[in-house]
């Protein structure tokens, strides 16, 4: 766990298969929200097979009545998890970077009653997902292994993109809730302003 002028970020082991399946169920049920999230953040794009799996799952007959129950069970299980670093270089680097970047927003996070976050690699997620309670941020591998220094692409019009932070991974994660017509981002859910 990092500290000292940083935001507390815990480092956790990858999501076990059973928990990953709950994320896949949720993702396939709220596929429209996830696809819209991706479209609005072009050129971010998950690997084709990851997106295809979620779409295939959506196309199958599914029972959405028990999704709330599945989320509640997931929340209880995850609340019992003790953080353990993965030792993975890319994961550690991202955790350190996120911890530093989120420190810039400590006041906003505190006002939203978020005092620490646990980062969990989640192979079944296609977008960043946040689980309130355990306060876990599930990140898909494609967003963990290759976080660019800067999301803004450079081109001939703007050859030097503005400096950016990784804080958006948390603020713009979709919150794992059910029984709602639209899924909020974390910033919206906790009523946190992302900008200054």
């Amino acid at each position, binding site marked *: 766990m990092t500290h000292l002028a940083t935001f507390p970020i815990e480092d956790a082991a990858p999501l076990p298969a059973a928990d990953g399946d709950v994320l896949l169920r949720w993702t396939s049920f709220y596929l429209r929200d996830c696809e819209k999230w991706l479209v609005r953040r072009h050129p971010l794009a998950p690997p084709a097979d990851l997106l295809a799996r979620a779409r295939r799952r959506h196309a199958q007959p599914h029972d959405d009545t028990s999704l709330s129950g599945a989320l509640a069970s997931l929340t209880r299980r995850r609340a019992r998890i003790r953080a353990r670093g993965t030792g993975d270089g890319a994961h550690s680097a991202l955790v350190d970077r996120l911890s530093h970047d989120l420190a810039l927003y400590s006041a906003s996070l505190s006002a939203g009653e978020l005092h620490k976050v646990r980062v969990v690699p989640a192979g079944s997620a296609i977008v960043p997902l946040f689980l309130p309670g355990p306060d876990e941020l599930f990140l898909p591998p494609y967003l963990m292994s290759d976080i660019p220094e800067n999301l803004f692409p450079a*081109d001939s*019009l703007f*050859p030097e993109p*503005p400096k*950016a932070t990784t804080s958006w991974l948390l603020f713009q994660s979709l919150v794992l809730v059910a029984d709602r017509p639209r899924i909020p981002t974390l910033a919206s859910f906790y009523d946190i302003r992302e*900008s*200054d």
Partner: protein
Amino acid sequence: MLTPACEYDPWMCRQFLDLLKSGLSYYKTFLHSDWTTPEQVDYRSSEFTLTDLGESEESLRDRMDWMPGLGFDCDWWDTSEVCAREPHLSPTAVRGAIRIRNEAVVNPIALWEEMGRAMAARGGKTYSEGLVGVEEQGERVSLVTGGGVQVVADRVVLAAGAWTADVARLAGLEVPLCPAKGQMVLLRGTPHAIGSVVFMPTGGCGSIVERRPGSYVVGTSEEYLVPDEHNTAGVVGTVLSRLCGVVPDAAHWRIEGMWAGFRPMTSDELPVLGVADDRRFLVATGHHRNGILLAPLTGRLIADAVNGDVPFDGLDLSPFRYGRPLRPHARFAAKY
């Protein structure tokens, strides 16, 4: 659109509210002088209808708790009043609206052309090959254009919009900006289908403006990861779909053109106005969605700074100072 009421939010500093209001007020002074007329630039007073769209999760009605208190001349209209006063708007798309009075519109292209003519008439020169270098020449600054022309000056104002950061870097200055792309569509339809500027605040700051009878400009988006000037199916499709939901007759309007531009945005959404660390340079940028509203006033404020005068209207410009602490940008999700 010249609308402090639609652009101010309570989380912003009061000095920004003062700046917006002063910008609107200054337009009358700016245009009633010897270089142009309001008619030449399609300037007119206008009411704004800030629609409470059904597609939004949150109602705008809460804004009536603070807007009148900040001096905005506005009323809440329920759906029946919207139908009575703006009969072409569909109540199926609109839950109500805030009607705002005593604001204005101007044609930015016409304004730009008139200002260019006025500047040329006063001996001003335009170099269109871009700026490629900034050099020292004693205590003065030498600007080198792409065409090899050298312009030497005592003071230089950096006001290059979304490209001010690149220009400032040539001078060894840091102006953290993010280019926020916006797409617009020009349509030809029935004249006077709307009696005001219709603001559609969902995601981006969407609006319908009748620039001239039957000529409508509709927008827009706020996109942060797309540094190219193309129009896209997603944005244009969403904007036009929303337009047709709010004004069903618009389904028959003819599309006459589309374009995209880039707004200079700082991470605190406030402009950068004033003298830089190197006092030979002044910065005037970061106006985000209020470039047109604030352009004339900004010119006046920069002139005041150059002349060592107190800022026009006694405005407190401290929140907009160059070099203030700004976090790196974190806004990536396109809004439209």
